[in-house]
């Protein structure tokens, strides 16, 4: 977003998900894994495009289908020339999260209840609409949980009446002020405005494994 005020980048270090953003020399910016901020021996990278590869695999070399999963790899240091580059890098690390946050801040973010997302599906995912309330409650708790599942703050509800996504998740999971990494620091929230395709796919597995009555 050329020229747009980057209000999210005011507080330094700025933390977004598992990433720490610090100021470097000569107006440059330094991104690291939050666990690595104090580490000296980090593999240097530069330019926003490097984020594509850094975000693709976890520490064990496995593909990361969900970029907001708490498995960002360690051991790197990304040097970026300016704020615009920082934004581009973040768009690779956490695609569309800045745009979602901006929309939310502006009071314009539309969220979609899980039921609506599932009922909209077609083809192989049409069956997901059959997931029961109990199954959905358990699935969301397992799949979206911040420790081991996903670091997003859930803003959607389970249905149009406002049922919580899962009663098994702590209240913080729905609180944008809460640092979902559990470090208790100020962090820019990664917001979830609508169930992702991975959760839809997982719903299908649940429905498929339900014995027919």
């Amino acid at each position, binding site marked *: 977003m050329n020229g*747009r005020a980057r209000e999210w980048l005011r507080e330094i270090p700025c933390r977004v998900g598992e990433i720490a953003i610090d100021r470097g020399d000569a107006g440059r910016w330094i991104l690291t894994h939050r666990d690595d901020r104090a580490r000296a021996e980090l593999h240097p990278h530069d330019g926003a495009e490097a984020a594509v590869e850094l975000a693709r695999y976890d520490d064990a070399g496995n*593909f990361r289908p969900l*970029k*907001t999963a708490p498995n960002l790899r360690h051991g790197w240091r990304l040097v970026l020339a300016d704020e615009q580059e920082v934004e581009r890098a973040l768009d690779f690390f956490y*695609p*569309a999260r800045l745009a979602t946050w901006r929309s939310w801040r502006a009071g314009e973010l539309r969220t979609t209840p899980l039921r609506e997302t599932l009922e909209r599906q077609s*083809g192989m995912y049409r069956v997901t609409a059959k997931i029961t309330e109990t199954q959905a409650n358990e699935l969301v708790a397992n799949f979206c949980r911040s420790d081991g599942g996903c670091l997003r703050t859930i803003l959607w509800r389970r249905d149009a009446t406002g049922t919580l996504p899962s009663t098994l998740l702590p209240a913080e999971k729905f609180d944008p002020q809460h640092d979902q990494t559990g470090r208790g620091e100020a962090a820019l929230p990664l917001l979830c405005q*609508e169930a*992702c395709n991975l959760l839809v796919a997982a719903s299908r597995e649940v429905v498929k494994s339900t014995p027919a009555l």
Partner: protein
Amino acid sequence: MISETHSALLIVGHGSTVNPDSSPPNLVHAAEIRRRGVFAQVECCFWKEEPSLRDALLLFDSPALREVYIVPNFISEGYFTKTVIPRELELTGRVTERITGQVWKYCEPVGNHPLMTELLLQRAREVAPGVPENETALLIVGHGTDLNDNSAVAAKREVEKIRASGRYAEVLNVYMEEAPLVAAWAQLTRAPHVVVVPFFISDGLHSYQDIPVLLGIEAEPTAAASQREVFRQNPYQLHGRSLYYSHAIGTEPRFAEIIVEQVEAFACDTARPRKILHEVP
């Protein structure tokens, strides 16, 4: 008219939850188009990866952007272009006006572009440099005729065009899951050289990992194509022939050009009486 200050581009890809090679061609083409500075903003979105198609609704929030061109990076019209993309992007037809006044324009998938034939030929020549075409069988691999998928139709159209050029000794369509099967390549062809070009958008479709196995050049599907040496070992000597195996056509850098041309085609087409290209359910 595409404007470098008011027009944005959204490239829609399939993506994959298991294969790292699925989304990179989209990102590479987007980076190239961005570098050319034709659009004010260029973004990708995916059915199976992030940003999602739903996220894409939030990506063009600058008030300066008056129009967003959507180009499906798909081989053909089908279930995705006709059902999934319009639904997820809340399109009401070829042209959709948002409440902000921003207009979203739905272009044709890349695979429909006439340049595709030339790219397939170019790819075939690159994978088997110096190999005489009149002693070569060219196999274009497609998925197969899924109910909602016209990719087999598109692959057949390309084969007919290449065959008509008379350059190759043989030109054939083969499929992964239906006859004529890619696995039967040795029986289907007679030429001493065989070039195999997958008519796919990326090397990362889940099924794509099976092609080397079906060809007999690998024992079992292993890691993603990018993590293997499969393309570097050409030619493979099998059944008394030389077999050359290519990357999926969608990894071709000139796809960036095709994406832009699909936008230009749309922009020109709106000046003429509109033909309905997409049925939106």
